[in-house]
């Protein structure tokens, strides 16, 4: 992203310089580059009714003195290099974006929370299904690691709930281990009752908060 931003700054800076040149009355650079371009144009514009003297002079320039022509060539080469560099950077940025999007899509896929009964860390059949999908995903992306975050509802003490969240996160980790995922790829943390998804004080809300949340932490 930083590179894209830098490239954008460079382009803007370039535009700014050009426009600066255009505002200055004499514009020596303008004489060269447009002159060269106009030479090309001229071929396709033979019918131009009344070429001005100054233009003729410029056309002559490449044939009479070599320096302006060489300068133009160098300039052109520099511009081409610059364009190529920008194109590569844009491509890289695009690739990174696509990768991030893919990661995001996969994250959503495995982002289904695993839910628990009150004061329980036993995995339900549904929880095992979700973990099955997570395991498959981790098999497909052997470079990725995950963090499992154990959470509780607000009932009970902050201390006991921190301990219970540890059990919940670890239950999922152990099951993934059973499905063949290397435990070193799985980090666990318990937030106890400190990060509720739902802040009402109803059984429905409590059920949503008793969960393992899985986060992909990259390669």
């Amino acid at each position: 992203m930083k590179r894209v931003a830098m490239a954008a700054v460079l382009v803007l800076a370039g535009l700014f310089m050009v426009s600066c040149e255009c505002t200055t009355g004499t514009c020596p650079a303008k004489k060269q580059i447009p002159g060269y371009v106009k030479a090309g144009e001229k071929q396709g514009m033979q019918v131009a009714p009344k070429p001005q003297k100054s233009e003729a002079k410029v056309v002559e320039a490449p044939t009479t003195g070599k320096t302006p022509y060489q300068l133009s060539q160098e300039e052109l080469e520099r511009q081409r290099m610059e364009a190529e560099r920008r194109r590569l950077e844009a491509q890289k940025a695009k690739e990174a974006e696509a990768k991030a999007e893919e990661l995001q899509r996969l994250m959503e896929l495995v982002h289904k929370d695993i839910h628990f009964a009150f004061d329980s860390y036993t995995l339900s059949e549904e929880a095992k299904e979700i973990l099955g999908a997570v395991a498959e995903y981790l098999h497909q992306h052997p470079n990725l690691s995950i963090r499992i975050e154990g959470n509780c509802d607000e009932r009970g003490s902050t201390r006991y709930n921190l301990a219970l969240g540890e059990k919940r996160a670890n239950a999922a980790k152990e099951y993934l281990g059973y499905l063949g995922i290397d435990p070193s790829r799985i980090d666990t943390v318990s937030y106890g009752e400190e990060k509720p998804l739902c802040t009402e004080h109803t059984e429905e809300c409590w059920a949503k908060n008793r969960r393992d949340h899985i986060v992909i932490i990259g390669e």
Partner: protein
Amino acid sequence: MRNINGKLFGLILTILVATLFSAQGYGKVYIDVTSPGGKLVSVALLMKGDPDTKRVQEVTKKDLELYGLFKIIDPKTFITNRFENGNFKDWRFIGAEILVVAHGGTRNGKFSLSARVFDVVEGKEILARKYSIKREAKDLVGMRLADDIFTAFTGEEGIFYSSVALSVRTRPGIKEIGIISPDGSSFQLLTHDNSINLCPSWSPDGRWIAYTSFKRGEADLYLLEVATGRVKVLSKKKGAEISPSWSPDGTQLAFSYSLNGNSDIYIKDLITGYTKRITRNPAIDTSPAWSPDGRKIAFVSRRSGAPHIYIMNPDGSEQTRLTFGPYEVSPAWSPKGDKLAYVSVEGGKILIHVLDMKSGNSKVVVEGEDPCWSPNGRYLMFFKGEGPRRTLYLTTEDGNGIVKVRRLNGSDPCWRSLQ
């Protein structure tokens, strides 16, 4: 949430108290704090001086009322606004049983108050004291005067000239450590970590607060020096270290630690730095609470399928179950060690119980959670309600006279013990 008007706490600014007179014994001690719910004792507050004195009078009035034992007489009913030695007639007439005569004021940035306390019924002076402190901390004089009146008539230590550490939710998912005066009048955040900071525990000397913080991503233990705000790492092992509890001599810290998802109880020796494991159980063991005599540790274990309160020796021997309800957490020893408060959860019903350690009898005190004893063992501070309605309350150990301390979305109150 900042500290209001730069008010600070007893632990930072010391109050100068000169006792000019104190009655031998307590004269007629007519308040029995062990049998609350009786008739409130009427107090006339005759305090004169500048606006600072008025403010201090308000604090004294509020704190006396929070004790749940006193009733403050409306000054409009006063027959006289003067007290002449030996003339108790006018005060008896309006029903006053205690008369507080005081005058105060601020000079050169220092607030001073001279106070005399009379037993109107007996017609004699009980106490004469002079207090002085930096003007910005003048509220402490009001707290201290209320405490001295309480002490003079009950024989018990006062509770307001102290400070309660707690964990406060400042934003969703963020908790900081703060301290609050026990009457709720001043509150101050001690950490600004933008993290989850929990389980504050005062060191016995009142200098440090040990607590749990997630500021490195997972739960570790830290020590905060309250006077300076300096923070030291106490333990940052891989895995979660939570729920510190000091040994009464301040040399050891019990806590629970979980490496592979199962928390057990450990003790760190603060002198040698050596940590030893105390419980080994595949079920959750957490929430250690060191008994005031240092000979027992109460804790929460899930070893029988649900959380219950257990007790053991500090070397891990003689682990015994104490509670037999459906779900019990949050053990908290009374300062004398004769009682253990805890919390039961059944459905949405959350209750505070007090277990008498001698008789083994347990009774429900109040609806609420996170019980914390006042240093004199006569009151319990606790939280009740959730979210924006969550409030810190104070009640007597029997659950009588429940008073609101302050609305606060927090947890884990811990009262600084007296020195």
